[in-house]
């Protein structure tokens, strides 16, 4: 068993960075250890393979975009700062000033608010215990009175009287003014600041129309309930996104392509997608844009796709690509994504599905016609619009027939 040190020296040997003494050690090690020889051989092989890996050439001159970005962003060569430590004040000075300022603000706030609250409390207390201006004897009434005379009045007589000035009138029992029962005062007579949150805007409830996705098993499209569910849904709108999760995007696309063409339809495949189809080992998702499809035609197409897929069950190993179909009405986001994939805004384009002259949904379509569709490698993060196939597809677009739909069909393989 090789020690870690031996292993490390063997990897450094592969790196070609050993001293002559270390190389002699490796030679001796290799002489006596078969395991070392084997490991070295493998490491050299790995290193050789790494060397043989090629990077594709850079196809664009970066000087132009770099200079353009410099101009656009107004980038300038930044002068290196002279170092903060060489400034007039040490580094801690800024922190100390900030801490002192914070402390002063906190202390100031405390004293300010404490003073305000004290004054308010005092004013409120004075308001509630205010003595009336004429404290003379009150006429007798039925309400209870608070008399300042203490209960132990008789005992008080035995106590020495306090010295009083002759001018002072004789001591008499003064009745405290009657405190009326506490009643809320009308706001007009007394305006006291009320500490509350500012008035809030009332939250207005609105009804949102949310179209839920319709999900069915592709192989269950022969069931009438499922068919009706989809047809009903597809008659509600004019553009739909169909997600078809599949085991392998390329295999699934080939299956779709076969079914689509058997129907006499044409399919334009973008160059990138064509390249990906030739490289099945690269996992690829595909998107198919089809227009002018009646719901019944779309259903028939998917039904046939399900039938074609079912044939794969007989193969060994089974080659079933599809499972569920998820149909959603195209949202603004979907339309945006489609526009980015194609490099053109189909809605603004006018012709075809979703255009300004889009016919009303639900009407009976005219005679059947050959459909054009466009297939792209689905990479919404880095769309590559504007290929020749996209242009041809856009040129071949016609105003949509009444009651037909636009479909964005995504064949999505498993992600990691």
């Amino acid at each position: 068993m090789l020690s870690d040190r031996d292993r490390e020296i063997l990897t450094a040997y592969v790196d070609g960075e050993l001293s002559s003494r270390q190389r002699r050690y490796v030679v001796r090690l290799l002489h006596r250890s078969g395991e070392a020889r084997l490991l070295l051989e493998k490491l050299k092989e790995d290193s050789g393979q790494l060397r043989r890996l090629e990077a594709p050439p850079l196809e664009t001159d970066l000087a132009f975009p770099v200079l353009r970005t410099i101009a656009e962003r107004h980038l300038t060569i930044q002068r290196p700062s002279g170092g903060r430590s060489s400034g007039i004040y040490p580094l801690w000075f800024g922190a100390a000033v900030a801490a002192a300022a914070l402390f002063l603000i906190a202390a100031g706030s405390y004293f300010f608010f404490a003073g305000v609250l004290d004054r308010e409390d005092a004013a409120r207390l004075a308001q509630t215990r205010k003595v009336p201006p004429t404290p003379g004897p009150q006429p007798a009434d039925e309400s209870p009175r608070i008399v300042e005379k203490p209960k132990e009045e008789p005992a008080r007589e035995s106590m020495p009287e306090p010295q009083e000035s002759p001018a002072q009138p004789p001591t008499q029992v003064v009745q405290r003014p009657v405190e009326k029962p506490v009643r809320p005062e009308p706001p007009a007579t007394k305006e006291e600041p009320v500490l509350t949150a500012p008035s809030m805007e009332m939250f207005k409830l609105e009804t949102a129309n949310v179209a839920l996705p319709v999900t069915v098993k592709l192989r269950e499209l022969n069931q009438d309930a499922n068919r009706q569910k989809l047809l009903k849904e597809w008659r509600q709108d004019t553009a739909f996104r169909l997600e078809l999760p599949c085991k392998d995007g390329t295999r699934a696309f080939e299956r779709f392509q076969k079914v689509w063409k058997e129907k006499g339809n044409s399919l334009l495949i973008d160059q990138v997608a064509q390249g990906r189809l030739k490289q099945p080992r690269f996992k690829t998702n595909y998107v198919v844009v089809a227009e002018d499809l009646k719901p019944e035609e779309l259903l028939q197409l998917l039904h046939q796709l399900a039938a074609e897929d079912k044939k794969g069950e007989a193969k060994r190993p089974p080659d079933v690509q599809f499972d569920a179909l998820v149909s959603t009405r195209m949202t603004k986001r979907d339309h945006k994504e489609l526009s980015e994939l194609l490099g053109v805004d189909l809605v603004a384009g006018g012709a075809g599905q979703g255009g300004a002259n889009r016919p009303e949904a639900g009407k009976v379509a005219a005679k059947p016609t050959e459909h054009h569709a466009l297939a792209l490698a689905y990479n919404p993060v880095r769309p590559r619009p504007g290929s020749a196939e996209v242009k041809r597809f856009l040129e071949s677009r016609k105003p949509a027939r009444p009651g037909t739909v636009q479909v964005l069909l995504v064949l999505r393989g498993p992600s990691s």
Partner: protein
Amino acid sequence: MSADDQRLIVECLKGNPNAFGALVRRYQDRLYHTVYRLLDNAEDAQDVVQEVFLNAYQSLEAFKGDSQLFTWLYRIAVNAAISHKRKQRQVVSLDATRHGERGAEPLDPSVQTQPGYALEQAEQGQRVWQALSRLSPEHRAVLVLKDMEGQKYETMAEILQVPIGTIRSRLHRARLELRALLEEDE
């Protein structure tokens, strides 16, 4: 530093952007190859190299000329690529693959259309790329710099800004890890 580089830098500092364009043209291919090997994605590599040049332009004044200009650019590029790779690892790619298969790239047709490229790389190269992509960005970087770029420990230490001993131990671990991954695949 070469006299040409020095002259171009002086021109840049005087405010001549075309001189910087010349520097870009001089080093873009080498930087791109290195970054591509670290990222395994043509478009990302282009983006990163472009950003590297922009950063370099802004920091040109800070380049003291103690090392080669390329080494300085290389340092910025490798660090940017490692940083990009780290961020990328946290993102679930829409078009990613599983079972260790290489990602959706190259979507770039240029890679696919190179005569013999796919064939030559298809078997063994594919496995090595896969294994390489499973290494940490730091381990991948040292292997790329050493085996693919043929850099010395000393230069690598300067580029990655770590001691030579760290380079040596990282390479040791990276080679053994790569070996283990390839053996898993065999």
